[in-house]
Every structure is written in C-alpha cells, then in structure tokens.
C-alpha cells in the first residue's frame, strides 16, 4: 500500500517537475511589457470616448468582449442546471424532507435583517460596475450570499423555485434581447451604445452598461442561489 503510494507520489513529482520545467522556462523568458500593447492601448485611449465607462475592465467585459461574458453567464446557467440534474439523477421524485436541526433564534432574526442589506449591497455593486471596481458577477455573488444566509437560518424555507427560475430566465432573455437591440440599433450584437454615453463618471452613463450589468448581476445571483438551493434540498437516502 505505502510502497505503491510512494511510487505514485514519485511519479507525480517527476511529471510535475517536467511541467514545472516548462513553467520555469516560461517564467524565465518572461519580460514585463514596458508599455501597453496595441490592444490594451486602444482600450486605454478609446474606452472613455467609445463607451463612456470609467472602469475599463467593465467596458471590456460588458461591451468589447461581451460575447465572452454572455458565455460566462451561460456557464453559470449551465452549471446550476446540471447541478439540479445531477442531484435528481436516477432518483424518483420524492418529497420527504429530512429532520432539521433547529436553528438559533439569533441567527434567524439576524439574517432577516441582514439579508436585505446584503442584497442591497449586491445591487449597489453591480449598478456601479462601470464606475468603480465590481460589477455583475461580484454583485451577483453578494446577492447569492444573502440568499445563503436565509437558507442557513431557515433551511425548511424553500426558496420559491419558480421565483428563482423566473428571475433567471428574465435576466437571461433580457440580456440577449439587449444584445439584439445592439445588433439592430448600434454596431453589433451586445453593443452597449444603444443609449447615450452620458458624462464619464456619472451613474447614468456608459450607454446600456449599467442595464446590462444589472441583468448580469441578477442572473448570476439567481444562478448561484439556484445552485445553493439545489444542494441544500437534496434529500437523504
């Protein structure tokens, strides 16, 4: 047993040493740029005028590389869907619930007050995504942690699957619809310049970015929530 384990470890070390050698030569050959390359330079110079977003990363995520972000949102959608599928795999639908450990009064009360605040924070993060660090993904994650809190405080309280699914679908379909509007009214699919750019640094600016990022935030929040509820609702055997 241990002998076999030793061999396995040695082999792993040997292989990873080789991979490490590759990494090392990448590292040794790496010379940091002294100046922005032409892609980055374009973003630095044109984002403000093109998109009107102060946060260039947001501009890239929502507009320039919007298709990636759509894909990313889809990954979450897919993951939450499959988590649901996996957990129901090979099982007949049954409704019996496990016995639950009673939860402390403090947690219940606290979460009732805290959760809305956390969720509000999430909304703030994604609405301001084009101005400050943060955006739909971070905001969505924060919203989901609010949900998590609720889930922890009262596991019996089933989140309305319909609600989550509706938010999920609404934000998803809305996101695509906005993208289509871009295709029709502006330069292409997911072009955020369907609304005026406004003044750099103001809340209502950067075209449709706040709108899109909000939808992404909702979507991400809904996906994470759906994953968490699926995981929490798996029945015992």
């Amino acid at each position, binding site marked *: 047993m241990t002998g076999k384990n030793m061999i396995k470890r040695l082999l792993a070390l040997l292989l990873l040493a080789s991979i490490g050698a590759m990494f090392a030569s990448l590292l040794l050959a790496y010379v940091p740029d002294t100046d922005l390359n032409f*892609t980055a330079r374009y973003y630095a110079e044109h984002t403000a005028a093109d998109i009107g977003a102060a946060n260039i990363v947001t501009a890239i995520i929502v507009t320039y590389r919007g298709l990636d972000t759509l*894909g990313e949102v889809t990954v979450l*959608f*897919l993951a939450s869907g*499959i988590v649901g599928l*996996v957990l129901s795999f090979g099982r007949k639908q049954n409704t019996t619930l496990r016995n639950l450990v009673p939860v402390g009064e403090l947690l219940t009360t606290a979460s009732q007050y805290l959760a809305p605040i956390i969720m509000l924070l999430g909304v703030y993060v994604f609405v301001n995504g084009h101005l400050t660090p943060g955006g739909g993904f971070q905001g969505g994650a924060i919203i989901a942690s609010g949900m998590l809190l609720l889930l922890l405080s009262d596991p019996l309280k089933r989140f309305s699957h319909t609600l989550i699914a*509706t938010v999920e679908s609404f934000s998803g379909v809305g996101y*695509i619809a906005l993208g289509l509007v871009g295709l029709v009214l502006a*330069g*292409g699919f997911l072009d955020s310049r369907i609304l005026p750019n406004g003044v750099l640094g103001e809340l209502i600016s950067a075209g449709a970015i706040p709108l899109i990022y909000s939808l992404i935030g909702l979507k991400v929040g809904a996906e994470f929530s759906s994953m968490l509820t699926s995981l929490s609702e798996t029945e015992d055997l």
Partner: protein
Amino acid sequence: MVSALYILIAALGAAFFLGFLKDGMRATAYALTLAALVFMNFISAGWVWVFVVDGAAPVEILTSGFPPPFAINLRMGLTEAALTLLVNLSGLLSALYLKDVLLALGRRSMAVLLIAVMALCGIILTRDIFNLFVFFELAAIATAGLILLSEDKRALSAGFKYMIVAQAISVLLLIGIIFSYHATGTLNIDGMAEASTELKTGASIAFFLMFIAVVAELKPFPANGWALDIYESAHPAFSAIFSAASGAAFLFAADKLLHIGGAAWFPLATGIGIVTFVAANLLALPQTNDRRLLGYSSIAQTGLVLAVLGQQDILGDRYLFVAGGLLFAHSIAKAGLYWLSGLIAGRELPDWAALRSRPLLIFAFVTFIAMLSGLPPFPGFYAKWELARLLAGEGRIALLALILFGALLEAGYLFRWFGYIIKREQPAQRVACTPHKLAPVIAAVVAGWALGYLWGDLSGHANLLLAVPLLFALSFLLLEWLPAWIKNTLAIAGMVAFFVLTYAEYDPLRLIFSVIILIGGPIIFLASYHEHGRRIGFYPAAMLMYAGLTLLIRANDSFGFFAAWEMLTVGSYFLILRGKHSEPHALSYIIFSLGGAFMILAGFALAAQGAPQFDLASLSLLTQPLAPWVFILLALGFMTKTAAIGLHIWLPGAHGEAETDVSPMVSGILLKAGLFGLIVLLMTMGKQQLYGIELTHVLLWIGALSALLGNLMAIFEEDAKRLLAYSSIGQMGYAVFGLALMNHLGWLMALMFVINHYIYKSMLFLSAGGVAKRTGTRDMYRMGGLITLMPLSFIATLIGIIAVSGVPPLSGFGGRWIFYNAILSSDVRLPMVILFFAGPIAFLYLFRLIHTIFLGQLKDEHRKLKEAPFWIILPQMIFVVLLLVFAVAPGLALRRVDTYLNQFFPEGGLNWAGTTISSNYGYWNPVAIMITVCVIFGSLFAWLLFVNRKAQKVKQFNIVFAGERPYRPETTHFAWNFFAPYRKALGFMVQPFVTRFWSGLTDLLHAAADLSRRLYNGNGQTYAFHFIAFVVVVYFLWTGV
C-alpha cells in the same frame, strides 16, 4: 442570409426562455427546443447554400460594433457553414431521438442540450482565442451534463473522470493563451497568426500548451480513457453528438491553432494523430462492448483527421476535400451507429444480430461501416485516394503505411462485427423501433449517400455513383421486395444487355474477360432460379460484385481501376458471407482483400507521383528506383485475389462454405479479377529488377509453388467443395506461372486457363453443390455410388475432371500443350520441374471426385435421392457443351488473342491453319485428337463391357482390406483419408505453416491490444496521470526532435 450570430442567439434565447415554462409544460418546452434547433439548422444550411451555389466570400461578423482584435469576431465561411450544419443536424436528430428522455428529465436537460450544440457552433465560428476557451468550457460542462441523460448509473463516474481531465486541460490552455497574448498583443486568432514570429518557430512553450490542450480534447492516445468511459456509459444519442459534432468542432479548433502556429507545428499534429489512429484501432480489436468499440473507432478516426490537419502543407487546395471527406464520413457513420445502438437491447457485439429482422437497418449498418472503412462510393474513399497519392507524391511513405495499417485494423473489427450480425443467433429481444428513433438513423443513411455523390462530384474523377453498372447493382436494393426469380431475370437481362451494348469497345484480351463476366455470370445465375422466396441481400451483393468486375475491365485509369477493385471486393464479401458457416472465412477474405487493395492503392499512389490519376498504360513509363516497388505492391495486391501461396488461407473456406450458386461465381469469375490485374501489370511494366533480382522470376516461383502446394492440399481434403477450392489455388498458380514466363505462349496459356478454369470450375462447383444439396453433406466419404441416381451430375463431373487434368481430348490438354511449348521456349528449369509434378497430383484429387462420390457402393440413406435440381443441372449441361466446343475449336477464343499478343510478344506466336495449330515445337489438331480419343475410348469401353458381361456382384460388406483398426466411424469408409500413404510421404509439405503464421500474427496483435488496454484501469486519477504524462512525453519528444 441571416447572420450566423443567430445560431448562438437562438440557442441561448431558447435555453433561457425555457425557465419561464412551468415544469408541467414539458411538451411545450420540447417543441421550443426542437424549433430552436430547426432554426439553427436553417441558418447553417442557408449559409452552405450561399457559399456553394452563389460562391460567396466568407463573412466576418463583428460583435459589439468594434473591429477585431478589440472585440470578438466570428467568421462564417464554407467550412464553418458545413461544420455548423453537421453540429446542428446531429443536435437536432439526437434531440428527436432523445424525446422520451428529455420529456422525462424536463426543461433543464433541454437547455443543456441546446447550449451544448450552441457551444460547439461557437467553437467553430469564433475567431478569438479566449472566446474559444469560453466555448470550450461550455462544451465541456455541457458534456458532463449530457452524460447524465443515460440510464446507466456508471455514467456518473465517467462524467467525473471527464471533469478531472477537463480541469487540467483548461489550466494548460489558459497559460498558453495568456503567454501567447503577451507575445503577440492580441487575442484574435488571425491577428496572432500574423503577429507571431515567436509562436511560429515550433519552440514556443506558450503555443505548445495551447495546442496540446486543444489536442487533448481530441482524445489522443493514451490520454483518452475518460472518453472511452463516456462512450460506453453515455446515452447513445449523446455519444452521437460527442463523436460526430464535438469531434468536428474540436478538430476545427485544432486547425485554427495550426493557423496560428504555422507549418512548424504540423508534424506534431500528424504525429499525435497517427499514433492515436493506429493505437486506438489496435486496442479496439479485443473489445466486445459495442459502444466502447465505437468509442475506440471514434478516437481513431479523429486521430486520422488530426494527422491530416498536419499534412495541410502538402495537401494544398485538396486539404478541405480530404479532411472534410474523412471527417464527414466518420461523423455521419458514427452518429448513425450510435443511434442504431440505442435500438439494440444487448451490449455485446453479437447482440446486434437482432438487426437481422430488419433488412433496412442492416443496409444502414452496411452503409455506416462502408463509410468508416473508406469504401466507394462514400466520401472517405475519395479522400483516402487523394491522401494516398499526395503522401506518396511527397515521399511520406511511412505515414501512408501507418494509415493503411490502421485502416485495415479498423475494417477488420468492423467487418467482424458485421459477420456477427449476419451469422450469430438472434437474441430474444427484438429491435426496439419507434419512428423518432428510426428517423435519425435513416437521415444518416441518406446523408451518407448524398455526400458520396457530392464528393464524387468534387473529386475531379468520374463520379462513381453515376457509373451505370453500379447504379444497376444499387437499383436491386429498391427491388428487394420482389421474388427472387424476377430479380434473377432482371440481373441476367441487364448483364447480357450491357454486354451487347458494349462488346465492341473491348480489345480481344478484355473481350475474353468481359464474356466471362457478362455472359458467364448469367449462365451461373441460371442456377439461382433454383432458390425460392425473396433471397434478401443476395442480388445487391452479387450485382455489386459484377458491377465491380465490369468496371474493372472497363477502367482505363488508376482511379477507376481501384474503385472497381474495392467494389468487387465488397460485393463478393457480402456474397461469401451468405454461406452457412462462412463467418470466419468471409472475415479472413475481406481482411486479405482489403489488405491487398491497400497495397494496390499504395502502388498506384507511388506510381502517380502526385498526379490525381494516370492512364494504366503509363505504368510502362515508370523508371528505377520507383518501378520495382510499384510492381511489388501491385503484384502482391493482385495475388491476394488469385490466392497465391502464402496469401491463400482465406480461399478454401470462403469458396467451400459459400452457397451452391455463389461458389462458382467467386471461383469461376471473381478469381479472374486478380489475373486481370496481373495481366495489366505485366503488360505495362514487364520485367522489373530489384537489387538484381528479376521480379517476374519471383512470380514464376510463386506460381509454381502455388500450383504444387495447392494441388497437394487438395488431395488430402475430404470435403468436395473445399477440394475444388484448393484446386483453384493450384490452377491460379499455373496461370500466374504462365504470365510470369513473359513470353507469347505463356500468356496464351494463362488466357487459356482463364477460360478453362471458368468453365470447369464453375461446372464442378455446381455439380458438387448439387450433390451436396441432395445428400446434405459435402464430405465425400459419406457418399458413394451416386452415378445411377445423379447421372447428369456425374457426366458434368467426369467431363470437368478430364478437362482439369489436362488429358486429351478436352481443352485442358490444349492448355497443357501450349504450356509445354511455353516452357520449352523459356529457360527456367527448376520451377518447370515443380510444375510437372503438380500435374499428376491434380489427377489424384480429381480422381477422388468421381471415384468416391459417384462410384462405389451407394449409402443406405441415399437410396431415394433424385438428380440435382433442374436449374443447377442446366448450367452444367451448358458448360459441358461449351467445353466440348472449346475443345474442338479453341481458335474461336484464342486466335484473336494470339494475334493481339503479337504486339507485346512478337516472337513465338502460334500458326493457325485450318483445324491445326502449330508452334515451333510441334502441332496440335484438336479435331483430330477428339476423334482419335473418342474412337479409342469407345472401342475400349465396348471391349470392357464385353469382357465383364459375366462379372459377379459382391455384397456391400464383403470387404477384404482391413489392415487397420477403425477408431472413428468415418475411418471404416474406404475412401476416408484415401491418400494416407501419400500423406505419410508428402504430408510435411502441407503442414498449415501459412495458416499458423497468419493466425499467430493476429493472435499477437490481439494479445498486445488486450494487454495494453489495461492501461485504462478506470481510475479517474490514473487518467489524470495519463494526461499529464502525455503532455510531458509529447513535449520531450517534440523538443528532442
């Protein structure tokens, strides 16, 4: 046309929208899913139309209104359109197939399916490397989800194993991407390709990591255990997508990367691809689970296309034609086979015998394995041809050899499987057919044939699907519902009509062959009237063989010749497989034949020196050092068909076990294809030398040994049909010998053998078959005394053996006479002596046919037998007449050939004066001989009757020879082991050395495969090890080189 973006938008929109639907509205959700898929197909098909018909230029699609590299762009060109159509179609058909499952699992499963298809389209369309990564991840996650559509609980662990490897892959991919970005300043694929001086050197680790990650998704050997587990356990409809669509998308991704890395990286792709191709096919050999077997085959085919991607430097503008041909053939066939597997209840290969109750599904299966094996008229065939000629033209012989070797392995297990279907016992559980599961299979069949037509059209060669003989053969597929006798009449009428219409086009040499095929074939078909019912499967197979034979003699160029060769091979294989116990023999036949065909392909490819095809006549223009190698390859290929010694082991079983009317077809007619090939070869290339060895000399020896050993093996045979089969080996040996003499008379003798062998071997097989039909056995020692009951069969056999043994007065003697003359005019002594020995040996075994079957005591159980059926006797009587006519007037056929041969061998022709034929060494007057022999025979016979008028009859059991103690029932029969004394003396020569060699070889391959597939121990962690080790080993091999 609508922007290709709508493919992605439609799928995503539908997937997201599904969430609005309540769980109870599953039917609506399913309808929405199908609608989205239909729309996606519509877009792809529309674009294919735009590019193909209107010849439009590729379209760049910008997203978010900015040009690349600042925003992600997509591209829609012909390749993308075709590939997305493939992906979308397989998605749609699988969705149809999955109806029950999707409805049971609900909208989430439908969303996952939609996104899977979308992600694969995205991989194909995108021109941004990081976007490619995102779609990769989507595809990977969706794959992990769709594996769960299976009811097989093991799918769960397969999915987990996949995710482990996918994680490792994506880490490497990301590192590669970010460092490539750092090197080039862009994420756009075309931009990278332009900017990357460093990546193009072939030494860049960044590019290596990206590339190896993409390649890892193509399931390279040995880092592919996870994929096999998925194939085995996933729902077949998903495996169809996974094999057909995912494979295509990831291959295209690899192609995009090669676009960045440039020619320096091509060898890497080829190396990984070819190793995977050969290894996966080898490991598939011992596999018994159908889906896992298909998985191995999928992996192999993907490897092959990857290898082709690495050859794009020499493929030039044929690159898409070749890669596309292989890819589409594989995708459609594999999807079709997976869909089929969902209809079969059992998971072992022989369980597929259930298909036998559905001829349509058998046809589908045949279509699919023919596509996978690269047989005409499917795209893979044209692609294989192009690939071979371009590889050979560039001198990449080793690669070509490996490809052909792998393809042979693959054909081996696919046809073995087909043998199970046709021959194994049908399982209790029937094929479960519902319309929505049948439709995808049929769609795949239709697509396969349509692409066959398309590829034929694009090939630049004659489109095989427009060749009249082939169309005629295929039309019998549509006529399968008719009774056999109508189809038989149609077949005869068609062949004769074709001969009448075309006979003026043949030169005398080809005329002989065309008469044998197109007139001789119908004569044998007369015997087929004896069969009743519909005889499903017989006519398409037989007519395919005849179509191939006809096209073979009509072919002027290398391509047409090779295509015809493959057709006749496949047709005859199906025909042979019909015999009751012929499963193993048909398999060895097809393997040897395809092996031979691949040699011919390689030979032609070498000879073409890069040209698409060439006139067969221009083989004569080849020079050293190429010429002898071409000669060897072609000669070996042809000799697999003539069953030259060493390559003969398939023949006895294949011919002996075939049906009564099939044996004469495959023996009397099919064997001539090999001779025809040799004739063409020798006629054009003549004598060739390799390292000072005269190659025709080698042929001479092969011919002589075949004659001797074939005959020797025949004398120890107890089975009448096998005896005749062995005798064919000997007879073909004579013909090869004659051709190899390379003089006028030798050739004349070979042609004489062509005609004679057709007549008497067909006749003997028919009479042996007729007797076997009546007695219910082919073992001669179980027969005896049938002369009175089956006089006509007796006469046919008697005439036949007189003709075969080459004694006067029949045409066999003419053959011998020409043969002795030919030898006298040549200076090879030793093989000549061997051949002389072979003559009397032939007499020994022929004698048994008469002696054991027709003479001697009648068996009790045979007392009530009748003569063989009319339709089996009729052609025999025709042959008797033909033999007599040919014996008296050989000039009818040979005189024109003799003159024709003058242009090749002006020396040593025969003189034809009246009924007398004379050579430098003597003369032969067939008419006089006939009269003389008849007179002598008649008077001797009369005298015999007179002398024996008082002969005493003896009791049957009054046996006086009882030297040995009988220990098996058959040993009590005097005719069993008739030539035991000879066996004691000569037995060492007929030890099955050759059989042992070949079965040893296959056993070795099997054992090696069985051992090495233990590599896939099922542990996900080991698979991760495999992947890392794969990366490391490839890296060191690559940088070491």
